[in-house]
C-alpha cells in the first residue's frame, strides 16, 4: 500500500488542500454531518477536484453522521444527475460509525476500506489532541515524577519528561521550577524527587476530579466485574490498564480488599466515541452515570504521551498513582493509605 499523505496540497489551480491522498485516491473526511447541505457541498468540492485530476478517485468519508443511509443514497442519486458521468463514476462514499464502516456507496475495495479506517483513526487522534483539555502540566509532570520515584527508576532528563508528558520544554521547565524544593537536580539536566512529596500529593488529590475527568458507567442489572475483566483481556484491539482494586492488588497483593465493587480502567488519549464504543462492547446496557448514581465501570483517560502501564505478561495495569487516586475516588481511604505506605516502604527498602 502506498503511503498516506495527510492534509495534502494538490498541485492544481488554487492550491487546493485535501484531508488525505494515497496513490490515486483522494480523501475528504467530515465529522458529525447533520445538514444535507454540508454533504452536498462536500460532494461538489470533491467533484471539482476530480475535474482537474482525471486519473484520480475521490472518496468522501462521513464519520458519525446524523443523516440516514436512505437519505444519503437519495442525495447521492440526485447528485448523479448534475455531474458528468465521467466524474461521478470516480466518486465514492464511506460512512463510519463507532469506528466501523456502516455504509458504502460506490465499489469500495477492501484495500480502500483499510485506508479509510487508517485515515479515520488519524483524524480521530488529531481531533482528540485539539479538543480534549489537557491536564495542567504541573500535575502531569508531578505524576510522572512520583511514578518514577515509586518505581525507583532514578532521575529523568528534562527531554525525557517532555517526551513522556507530551508537554513542551518551557512548560516542563516551568512546572519543575514550581516543585524545585522537592527535586534533586543532576548535572546532565535530569531530575528526581528527593522523597515522596506529601504536600504536593495532597494538592494532587484535592484537584484529582478536575485533573482526571473520570467517566462513569452503570447498568440497572450490572454484570460481574470478573466477566468484564475477562472480556477486556480477550480484546486485542484496545489497550487498557486495570487500575482501582485490581491494579492495587497487583502492586500490593496483601492489601485488605475484598470484592470489587467497581472497575477502574485507564486508557490513553481516547476520543469520547472510542470510550463509548469500548464500553458498549463490554455491555450494550451500560450508560453514563447521572449525579447520585454509583458507577460500575470508570474510565480514566490520561493524556500524556506514554501510558506508563505495567505489563505482568498477561495483563496491563494502570500506574501506581492512578490506582491510589482510584481508591480515593472510591472512598476507600483506608486502603489508599495502606497502599501509599506500602509503596513508600518498598521504595525505602530498595
Amino acid at each position, binding site marked *: 500500500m502506498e503511503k498516506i499523505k495527510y492534509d495534502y496540497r494538490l498541485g492544481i489551480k488554487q492550491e487546493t488542500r485535501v484531508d488525505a491522498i494515497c496513490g490515486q485516491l483522494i480523501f475528504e473526511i467530515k465529522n458529525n454531518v447533520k445538514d444535507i447541505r454540508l454533504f452536498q457541498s462536500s460532494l461538489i468540492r470533491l467533484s471539482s477536484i476530480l475535474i482537474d485530476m482525471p486519473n484520480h478517485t475521490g472518496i468522501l468519508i462521513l464519520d458519525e453522521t446524523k443523516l440516514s443511509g436512505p437519505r444519503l443514497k437519495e442525495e447521492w442519486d440526485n447528485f448523479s444527475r448534475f455531474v458528468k458521468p465521467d466524474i461521478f463514476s470516480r466518486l465514492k462514499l464511506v460512512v463510519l460509525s463507532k469506528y466501523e464502516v456502516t455504509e458504502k456507496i460506490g465499489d469500495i475495495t477492501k484495500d480502500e476500506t483499510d485506508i479509510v479506517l487508517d485515515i479515520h483513526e488519524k483524524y480521530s487522534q488529531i481531533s482528540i489532541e485539539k479538543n480534549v483539555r489537557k491536564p495542567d502540566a504541573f500535575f502531569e509532570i508531578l505524576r510522572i515524577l512520583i511514578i518514577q520515584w515509586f518505581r525507583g527508576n532514578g532521575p529523568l532528563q528534562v527531554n525525557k519528561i517532555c517526551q513522556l508528558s507530551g508537554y513542551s520544554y518551557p512548560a516542563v521547565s516551568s512546572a519543575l521550577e514550581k516543585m524545585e524544593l522537592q527535586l534533586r537536580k543532576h548535572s546532565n539536566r535530569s531530575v528526581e524527587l528527593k522523597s515522596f512529596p506529601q504536600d504536593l500529593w495532597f494538592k494532587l488529590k484535592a484537584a484529582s476530579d478536575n485533573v482526571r475527568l473520570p467517566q462513569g458507567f452503570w*447498568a*440497572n442489572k450490572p454484570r460481574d466485574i470478573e466477566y468484564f475483566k475477562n472480556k477486556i483481556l480477550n480484546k486485542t484491539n484496545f489497550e487498557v490498564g486495570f487500575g482501582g482494586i485490581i491494579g492495587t492488588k497487583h502492586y500490593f497483593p496483601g492489601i485488605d480488599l475484598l470484592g470489587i465493587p467497581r472497575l477502574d480502567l485507564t486508557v490513553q488519549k481516547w476520543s469520547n466515541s472510542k470510550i463509548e464504543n469500548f464500553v458498549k462492547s463490554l455491555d*450494550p446496557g451500560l450508560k453514563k452515570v447521572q449525579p447520585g448514581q454509583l458507577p460500575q465501570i470508570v474510565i480514566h483517560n490520561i493524556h500524556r504521551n506514554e501510558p506508563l502501564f505495567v505489563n505482568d505478561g498477561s495483563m496491563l495495569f494502570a500506574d501506581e498513582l492512578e490506582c491510589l487516586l482510584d481508591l480515593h475516588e472510591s472512598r476507600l481511604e483506608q486502603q489508599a493509605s495502606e497502599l501509599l505506605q506500602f509503596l513508600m516502604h518498598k521504595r525505602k527498602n530498595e
Partner: protein
Amino acid sequence: MNNIIPKEVIKTVAEAVPPDCLENLVIIGSLATVFAYFGNKKSIPVKTKDIDCCIRPHGVAVEKGQAIATHLIDTGWTRRLLGDHIEPGNSETPENELPAIRLYPPGINPEDENAWFIELLVEPESSKDVGKNWMRIIINHGHFGIPSFRYLSIATYLPEKDERLGVYYARPQMMALANMLEHPEIKPERMSTLFNGREIKRSNKDLGRVLAIGYLEQEKGTPDFHSWAQDWFTALYFCFPAEFNTLANNAGSGLYKLINSSEDLDEAHHTCAYGLLSSKSVTVDELKEAGERIIGEAVEDLIKLSQKY
C-alpha cells in the same frame, strides 16, 4: 388473565396426547418460556390461557393433527366456542374460514378464571410461505383448520425436550427471534381484546415478549447474549436458506424501534408486568436495558455472522 402452573399443564398435555404424536409436538409461547426458565419450580404461576402446540414437520401435520384432535375430543376435551368461526366446516368451507382447534381439558369449566385450552398450530410448508396460512384437518366432527405462521419454523427449531414427560418445548431465544422477525417494525394493529384493561399493539406485546425473555435469561445467570447469535444464525440458515442474510440484517429493527419509543415500550412493559414477569416487579428501564443488550450483542453478532456467508 389466568394463573396456571406450567408444570401441571404440560404434564396434562403430555399425558393426553397420543404417545406416537409427542415427537411431533412442540409447545411454544408463554407456557414454553416459563417452563424453560422455571420448569422445576412448582409454585411459579403463569398468566396465560392459550397453550400453543405446534405440529412439525409440515409433512405429517395432517395425519398427526387428525390423530391428536380426534384423540383429545374422544377423551373428553371440549372445544372452545369463541371467535369468528365456531361451527365445524365442511368441504365447501374455505380454509381461512375453518374453526381453529382449541380444546379445554376434561373437567375444566371454560367460565373458570383459571381455565386454559390448547391450540394446535403447524409449521409452514415452505420458507416461501408468508403471513398466516390455514391447513385443513378432517375428523369425524367436521372440518377444522390449523394455522401456520411464517416464522414458526424458527420458534420450533431444535427444541428442548423434557425427558421425563417426553414433551418438546421451544427454546426461548428461538421464540424471541421468531417474534423479532414477525415484527420488523411497530405495526399499528391492536390486539382484539384488552390486556389487563389496556389496548395494546400486537407488535408491542410480541416484542415485549422478547424483552421478557431477555430479562429472564439474565436472571438465569447467562452472562451475555452473544451465544444467541450462533443459535439464531443456524436456524435462519437452515429455515430460510435463500433469505437468511436479509432476515439477519432486519432482525433487530422492530426491537430497536420499540426500545426507543417510550410509548411503545410502556405498552410492552405493561404486557410483561401483567404477564410473564408478573412475579418480578420489573421496571421499564430494566426491560430497555435487556433490549439494548440483545441488540448490541445477539443482533450485531448475527449480522456479522451472516455477512461471512
